[in-house]
């Protein structure tokens, strides 16, 4: 079961990587990389079960977090050309 899932995930990752390399726009790349990150999280989780040591899930958790952070950072850069500006911020509060 886990073998099948691993193979499926690797195929998925290959396809996603192809999109990331080909583009054509930066958003496509970002989308592909974001999706790739999710697949990596899954791969590591499944791989942990495959080898009978599901203790690596901490790492999968980090990946999930970092993947989100990276995507948001790139998006913000697309929109603002800058990381620190307060443009995402409400003018009230």
């Amino acid at each position, binding site marked *: *079961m886990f073998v*099948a*899932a691993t193979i*499926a*995930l690797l*195929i*998925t*990752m290959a*396809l*996603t990587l*192809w*999109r990331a390399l080909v583009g054509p*726009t930066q*958003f*496509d790349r*970002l*989308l*592909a990389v*974001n*999706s790739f990150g*999710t*697949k990596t*999280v*899954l791969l590591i*989780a*499944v791989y*942990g*079960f495959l080898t*009978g040591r*599901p*203790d690596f*899930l*901490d790492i*999968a*958790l980090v990946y*999930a*977090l970092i*993947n*989100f952070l990276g*995507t*948001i950072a790139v*998006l913000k850069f*697309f*929109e603002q050309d800058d990381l620190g500006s307060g443009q995402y911020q409400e003018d009230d509060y």
Partner: protein
Amino acid sequence: MIDLLILLVSWALMIVGCVFVVSGAVALVRMPDLYTRLHGASLTDTGGTLVIGLALIIQALFVFDNSMAAVKMGLILLFTLFTSPTASHALAKTALLCGQVPLDAKGNPLLDGPEQASLLARSRPADYRHGQDKERIAQQIQALDNRGGDES
């Protein structure tokens, strides 16, 4: 009996998850434009993760007898459930804002141009609070119109 049931359920979930994930990847490769790709990828990302994660939780609980792993997997699921759609949403919104025009099946643009895409991203029920935003958006649209006229 219970073992068989567990096995069946987790197999079923895993297969469904794999189908989700692979179809998402196919969508990412085959779909004609950004937004359709986004649609395919983001839905299957979340869905696939959810289903495969459930399968893994069942496995962790009943086969590996490792409740800590199940809890961690649950946390991962919860986290992905929040962040993955959010990231997709932000991606779509930023892409529109930056003027990515959606295409139809034949590759024709669905909007007049990047300005309209950008406008689309900003159009929303503006007056849900104080009505300030409505005015500002109107101003901005005005500004955009002027600018568009200048440049063309």
